[in-house]
């Protein structure tokens, strides 16, 4: 039998031995929490009566009790007089907003007890759409006096002259729907407040700002919060960042009841009450020469963040701030951003945060420019690609975007041309079968977020402190038996971090991966940074860099110890063994060193550092705080080109993907299978949002999408017969220790435009209203 591939998380998965939040053993006396949620999108709470719950043997806490232990609202990223608490105080602002919690020692009974919560409401007119909100006759937050939580207008370069002088201006309007990346595992929390300490197990995706948000809302010092994640998380895609309000609710219930409290969210709750990406209306204008050279871009975005501007939103607008010119050399950009409040589920991180709506709009508009000018869309893109990277930082060259981004030097044209043979082949096919459509997209994929970009939500003159969080801690140690132990305060949502880190660290130390043990989970009792966690594809550029640095430092220490033990000042190293260069038969291996340090440290010469544990903090060198409205919003950026080949069913107006090709240069590929996995997963998330998934509401703000079935989530059946091809390039990104860019999100960023452009090649117009439900296509065709 052939040897199994090295894949630790995979082995846990096939043996069913993964440990997810619902698998964490509950302490004796644990109570199960169920949440009473608002049935109205917008209503005043008149009266709450919880006595029925008590009469039926349960425990219940409403806003009155909860307020006692949740004294503070969450901090916001916008400069607005809005208070966001994890429960409604006097007004409910979306269907599903928590109002009260009930507790029982049985999870089924906890749900039953919700029937006895009595709340009287005075329904108010809801604000459902972006257009409703802009009218402003009904207010989601009275204190704000409008439904616009933020307005920013920024200009970079000579926008006005470029637009007045350009002979061609293409303008398109877009709508990108509200959707949720929908991990298969829902939210879960186990909170236990005991002895002045708050112990929390939750399937969050990092300590991040979550530890800060939770302790602040509860008025507890961060020192009393012990936050842990289980070893495995059943997917997150950003969604589980927004778990923090529920951590606070469960913690409050534990504080009030004096018991451990467990909550596992239902799927329906996840659909109505967890998190989503925002709906966005956008207007894009492109100024161009007659032969298709893009001179300027104008964006106007209305981002619907739901009922509260929940941090990190409106970061969704600024995540792409440094790369608003896409892959093109454009030096004049204007952007107007509106953050809109409506009576819907608040938003937050969602895979490829900010990328899919942005590139959908930019890359469809670019395609429309090509169609209007009658230029081949691939050629028009190639013409506009960045070719010069004149800015030198250290030993590397960069292209500095007009908005502050730093693109490292790569051969963009080579990557884009890689999809050309298939592109031409399918254009030929299209001549034979008019129901085949071919669409292309070119983008740069940002990775390794600069948390400082959220500052752009505030006018420069009103910002208090600079921010540039991006770094990570990694600890690499050697135990007494010579096993290498790696610890990262991150999370495992299935990206293969344990396996990859084991291989990377083993390679640096010249040992077999089997002796490297990796722990990758949140534990705030150990060293952690505000920016630690799994998000923004930061693993390859940042976490691996830190792990390599730590391994190198540890090897340095081992070398010194080996010199001391071998009594020489010149040692060589191979396969985990140090040897005296002058007498190579004299050897000492890592195990021997580890053993000496542990059993007989007294014999080591003085002055030699005998610690076999190294903790490194790695901050990517390109990440700095904003200067005015310019910021390098990500540690790095990598080129990517997409080709979508679709087939339109003329009877049902439904679209099937025949073939999808992605060419990209991710710097360095550590484990090909995992890179491919990210591309395939991102591709499917992209298809899901482009073709199927939308969180829908009726005109009263009632959620219509209350099951996976209604959400139309693609199943395995939808993927059978789809062909995918990935073309990898590896230009080392030398300014990063790992030399690698992230790869988790680019696929999803490009899919919407690629599919819309492919459809436009069939029906002669771009359907710019997502998702592409067949009835929209029918109407576009039949008028």
């Amino acid at each position: 039998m052939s040897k199994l591939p090295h894949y630790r998380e995979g082995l846990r998965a096939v043996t069913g031995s993964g440990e997810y939040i619902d698998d964490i053993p509950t302490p004796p006396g644990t109570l199960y929490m169920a949440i009473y949620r608002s049935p109205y999108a917008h209503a005043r709470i008149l009266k709450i009566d919880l006595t029925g719950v008590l009469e039926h043997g349960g425990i219940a806490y409403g806003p009155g009790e909860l307020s006692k232990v949740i004294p503070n609202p969450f901090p916001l990223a916008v400069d607005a007089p809005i208070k966001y608490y994890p429960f409604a105080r006097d007004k409910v602002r979306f269907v599903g907003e928590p109002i009260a919690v009930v507790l029982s020692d049985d999870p089924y009974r906890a749900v039953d007890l919700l029937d006895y919560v009595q709340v009287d409401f005075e329904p108010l007119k809801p604000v459902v759409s972006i257009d409703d909100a802009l009218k402003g006759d009904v207010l989601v937050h009275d204190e704000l006096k409008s439904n616009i939580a933020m307005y920013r207008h920024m200009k970079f370069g000579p926008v006005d002259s470029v637009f007045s002088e350009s002979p061609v201006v293409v303008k398109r309007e877009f709508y990108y729907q509200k959707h949720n990346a929908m991990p298969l595992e829902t939210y879960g929390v186990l909170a236990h407040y005991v002895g002045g300490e708050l112990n929390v197990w939750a399937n969050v995706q990092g300590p991040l700002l979550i530890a800060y948000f939770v302790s602040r809302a509860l008025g507890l010092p961060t020192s009393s919060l012990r936050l842990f994640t289980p070893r495995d998380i059943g997917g997150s895609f950003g969604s589980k960042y927004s778990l923090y309000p529920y951590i606070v609710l469960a913690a409050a219930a534990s504080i009030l009841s004096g018991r451990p409290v467990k909550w596992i969210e239902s799927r329906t709750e996840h659909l109505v009450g967890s998190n989503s990406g925002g709906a966005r209306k956008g207007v894009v204008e492109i100024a161009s020469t007659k032969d298709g050279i893009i001179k300027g871009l104008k964006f106007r975005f209305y981002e619907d963040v739901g009922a509260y501007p929940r941090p990190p939103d409106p970061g969704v607008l600024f995540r792409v701030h440094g790369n608003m010119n896409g892959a093109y050399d454009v030096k004049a950009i204007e952007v107007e951003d509106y953050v809109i409040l409506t009576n819907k589920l608040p938003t937050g991180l969602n895979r490829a945060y900010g990328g899919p709506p942005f590139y959908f709009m930019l890359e469809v508009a670019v395609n429309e420019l090509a169609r209007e000018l009658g230029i081949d869309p691939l050629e028009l893109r190639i013409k506009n690609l960045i070719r010069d990277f004149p800015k030198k930082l250290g030993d590397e060259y960069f292209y500095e975007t007009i908005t502050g981004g730093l693109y490292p030097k790569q051969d963009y044209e080579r990557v884009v041309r890689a999809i050309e043979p298939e592109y031409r082949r399918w254009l030929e096919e299209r001549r034979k079968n008019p129901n085949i459509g071919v669409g292309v997209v070119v983008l740069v994929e940002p990775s390794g977020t600069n948390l400082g970009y959220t500052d752009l939500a505030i006018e420069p003159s009103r910002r208090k402190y600079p921010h540039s969080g991006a770094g990570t801690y990694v600890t690499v140690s050697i135990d007494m038996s010579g096993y290498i132990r790696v610890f990262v305060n991150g999370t495992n949502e299935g990206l293969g971090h344990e396996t990859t880190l084991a291989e990377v660290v083993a390679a640096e130390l010249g040992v077999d991966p089997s002796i490297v043990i990796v722990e990758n989970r949140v534990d705030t009792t150990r060293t952690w940074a505000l920016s630690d966690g799994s998000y923004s594809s930061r693993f390859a550029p940042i976490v691996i860099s830190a792990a390599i640095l730590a391994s190198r430092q540890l090897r340095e220490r081992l070398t010194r110890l080996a010199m001391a033990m071998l009594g020489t000042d010149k040692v060589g190293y191979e396969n985990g063994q140090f040897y005296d260069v002058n007498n190579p038969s004299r050897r000492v291996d890592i195990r021997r060193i580890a053993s000496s340090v542990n059993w007989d440290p007294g014999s080591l010469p003085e002055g030699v550092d005998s610690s076999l544990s190294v903790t490194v903090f790695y901050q990517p060198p390109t990440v700095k705080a904003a200067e005015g409205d310019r910021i390098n919003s990500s540690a790095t950026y990598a080129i990517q080109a997409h080709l979508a080949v679709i087939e339109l069913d003329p009877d049902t107006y439904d679209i099937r993907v025949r073939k999808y090709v992605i060419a990209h240069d991710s710097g360095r590929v550590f484990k090909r299978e995992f890179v491919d996995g990210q591309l395939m997963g991102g591709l499917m998330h992209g298809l899901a949002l482009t073709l199927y998934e939308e969180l829908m509401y009726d005109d009263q703000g009632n959620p219509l999408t209350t099951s996976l079935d209604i959400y139309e989530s693609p199943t395995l059946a939808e993927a059978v017969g789809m062909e995918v091809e990935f073309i990898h390039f590896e230009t080392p990104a030398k300014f990063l220790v790992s030399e690698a860019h992230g790869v988790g999100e680019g696929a999803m960023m490009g899919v919407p435009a690629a599919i819309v452009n492919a459809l436009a090649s069939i029906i002669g117009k771009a359907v710019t209203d997502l998702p592409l439900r067949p009835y929209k296509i029918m109407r576009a065709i039949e008028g």
Partner: protein
Amino acid sequence: MSYALGLPRGFNYLRASSIDEALKLLSEYGGEAKVLAGGMSLMPMLKLRMMEVKYLIDILSLNELRYVKIDGNYLRIGALTTHNDVAMNRLVNERAKVLSESAWHIADVQVRNIGTIGGSLAHADPAANYYPALIALDAEVVIRGVGTERVVKVAEFYKGPYTTDLGPSELITEVRIPVSSFNGVYEFFRRGGASFPSAIVTVTYQEKEGVITSSRISIGAVYPEPVLIKDNLAGMSTKEVGAKAVDIANSIFSSIEAKPLEDTHALGDYKIRVARNMLIKALANIASGTLSKPKTPVREVISEWKPAEDKLEYVGNLVRVRVNVNGQWIEDLVEPRLLLVDFLRRHGFREVRRGCDEGKCGACTVLFDGKAVKSCMIPVARASGHYITTIRGLSKGVELHPIQRAFIEEFAMQCGYCTHGFMMVTYDYLTNIDPAADDEVLKLSIKNICRCTGYVNIIKAIKRASKYLSGANP
């Protein structure tokens, strides 16, 4: 308001060991009882707390209601015949291909393993797959009450969305289809990951020397009631049907007065348009004689539901259950509503996971007497006396089962949350449905949800496992 769903309200659970006992219990408890057949419609409604029942009368082990036979002038199908048997049974395939096709399109292997034809008719979902097929086949339902038996045409049995002619203490015992030689076309359109179709068109006809003598066109999922158009093709040659397809379809749809159903998947005008196009296509296919559909596997025997060995014992409101999991009997005293998924997890089988409230995602899939089912759709009381297998029951100690091996070799997982369910349904699929893992059959059979992998590697793993199970060496 509660969105905390997926766990049913309390009910009492009873087992009927004969049709008469079931009828007796039904009439005894009047409107407070419902029979539980496959539970694939009833359990979601209970779990989503859209309805409440006081007594569930389990009829699944009435094997006397599982059969397909030709008897007299009828093809007779017992009410508890599962969707999988309707889909795969040789007689159904030979005599009523459109019915087999309609069954292949129902949900996935797990739902088809346990859901029944009688249950589907009684539930009367306006988008149910069977109705248009059965109406086009001029089928009838046999209904029994205490001491009564009557027969109703399927077209008349359906009274509106979720309402039928069935009395509160009656049972459907049989569906029967007149045996005659006809041709048929079944066209089906389902959108994305939605389970139910947006439109179904079924056409059946008989011809003599190239001329159609009778025809039945039935349109489902578009209007609140399935629409039947009788004999409007009669007298035409099949070629003529093809030539006039557009006119025929237009005149049919313009004569229908009912308002189309609207749902989040499809608007009314769109549904009508699609159904019209599908009908045109069906008629064109009749003209060109291209009626053949993907080859789906066929089998002879009807699966039985092993009657539980022990009687149910109630202790107060709790019921004593004994379930064999991976070879070991586990006993517990539980609320009758406790779902198998929770029972398994409470007893340490944490590999079984929950991903939805509605019975859709498949993360909770286990083998029930060797067949894949969704354990979130089964009250554990129903499993009492039965054999449950999880992956730990398939692998031998530390040695991986070939399916486990195939999944890891193809990197067919990321977060791993869906993996167990996928492996279990793959096992049943490759063992009992389609060892070759043909694309067309696979597409109709495995519809579990994975949010991480994009499925590409899972499909590869299923194909690799298919090779391993058919003898290739890992």
